[in-house]
């Protein structure tokens, strides 16, 4: 049916749906913030100081300073992905929250847009928490670190937009294991979170250059090291393309699933 493929049309009603999700988050905020802070903190302390003692400087900085930029990017990526896949599926399918919303004067395009912005907001909230950890550990070199926050939001849009394709196709939560183990985990290993991409085999470097997380880290790592990133437009453009195309494909699939 051709109307499944039509371009999205949004109204301001999406804000009411975003506020619904925000209200749920506020009720569980303490647990959520705790996780957002403690998880990357342990990772950076454990890997940075543990593994870091065995390593010389990486690209001219201490290992923990190198690791911080990658950690920000992959933590926020996971925050957005969990929200878009597990929580999104709960609201769409398990709790039937979307069904209730669609009986009100709100259309599916608005609901999916609200979920997209919300997942990016969760990524941003996670970014705030990690930035606090980074600041507390003295790993931010200068005020450029503040740009981690819009980057966190952009990372959220990128990975939630792609992840919604899985949500739209899922029959149960089990389906999401594929996304996390076959897509996201290898991406973390190939995108230069833990070691520089430049140390990898040329073929892997080529693969890496096509991955959205690589582009996120190309922005995030210099920001924490106090430098203005290079090729900003390229990196932002690649991430927006992944997120935007993913969002559109997912929206078509959501329409086929829910409006048939």
């Amino acid at each position: 049916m051709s109307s499944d493929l039509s371009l999205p049309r949004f109204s301001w009603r999406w804000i009411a749906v975003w506020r619904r999700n925000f209200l749920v988050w506020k009720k569980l905020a303490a647990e959520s913030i705790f996780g957002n802070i403690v998880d990357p903190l342990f990772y950076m302390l454990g890997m940075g100081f543990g593994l870091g003692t065995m390593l010389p400087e990486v690209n001219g900085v201490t290992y923990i300073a190198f690791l911080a930029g990658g950690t920000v990017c992959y933590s926020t990526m996971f925050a957005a992905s969990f929200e878009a896949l597990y929580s999104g599926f709960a609201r769409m399918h398990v709790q039937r929250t979307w069904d209730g919303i669609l009986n009100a004067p709100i259309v599916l395009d608005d609901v999916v847009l609200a979920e997209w912005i919300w997942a990016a907001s969760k990524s941003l909230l996670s970014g705030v928490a990690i930035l606090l950890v980074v600041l507390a550990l003295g790993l931010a070199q200068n005020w450029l670190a503040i740009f981690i926050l819009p980057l966190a939001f952009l990372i959220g849009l990128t990975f939630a937009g792609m992840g919604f394709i899985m949500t739209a196709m899922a029959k149960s939560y089990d389906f999401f294991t594929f996304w996390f183990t076959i897509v996201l985990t290898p991406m973390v290993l190939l995108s230069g979170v833990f070691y520089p991409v430049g140390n990898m085999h040329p073929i892997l470097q080529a693969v890496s250059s096509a991955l959205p997380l690589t582009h996120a880290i190309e922005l995030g790592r210099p920001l924490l090291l106090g430098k203005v990133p290079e090729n900003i437009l390229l990196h932002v453009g690649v991430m927006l393309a992944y997120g935007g195309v993913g969002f559109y494909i997912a929206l078509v699939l959501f329409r086929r699933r829910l409006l048939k």
Partner: protein
Amino acid sequence: MREVPVLDAANIRKRYGDREVVAGLDMSLRRGECFGLLGPNGAGKTTTLRMLLGLTAPDAGAIRVLGHPVPQAAREARIRIGVVPQMDNLDPDFTVTENLVVYGRYFGFKDDALQARIPSLLQFAALESRANSRIQELSGGMKRRLVLARALINDPDLIFLDEPTTGLDPQARHVIWERLRKLLNQGKTILLTTHFMDEAERLCDRLKIIDEGKTIAEGAPRDLIRTHIEPEVLEVYGEQVEQWVEKMAKPLASRAEVTGETAFCYAAQVQPLIDSLQNYAHLSFMHRPANLEDVFLKLTGREMRD
């Protein structure tokens, strides 16, 4: 002056694969009436409701709801519609009041307007003392009443109720029925689907029975009973009831149907049938007037639908 129908659907159709789930339905609701949409499982009720709400586009036909073409202007139509879905989809993370506030925001209401409206909704749903309870703490009847209150958040002109009392105990059902009466008295129009024929008979001014996506009967409950079925029913039950049916009921009743150990005999006069039972002491019987369930079973058959 001819009254404009609240809802008007003309020859709507919907096909999934090679099965036509809705095969040319007409429907028209008058302002202030309770209209019942009945049919066995898989008859096309849910698909019809989804099309009327603009959640599914019909393959053919025209729909107007509250003056708006659907699905083109379904959003505008839904501003004045309330929906009680078959499955409770209350927000489990929220309290009773929060559920109402959040739902009201979907209609674009400001929080202070909602705070002013919610006490009367809680009163209507008899949930005043539960305003700050979590959803998990509510009984099935309370949840259903809250879903009904939520459907009224926008003071709708037209209310869709999809099996509103399924799973409720008799007390809870009566409370829901009494509330629906109140809404009808306020001039609301109701579109109701149900599996309970007593519910339809009690509440509906008019109803439509559909099967395989087509209308098979339509009218006021009493008229349907009068035109489609004999006025008296004798239910006879016990072992080997078939023998009695073959020998006695078939000649005396205009129709006799056997399901398991029960025979349903339809006739204008049942006294001869009752007399014939004197030699069948092991059989028990119940004499009653024909009702909507008899019409429904006659028109849609007694075999199970899954």
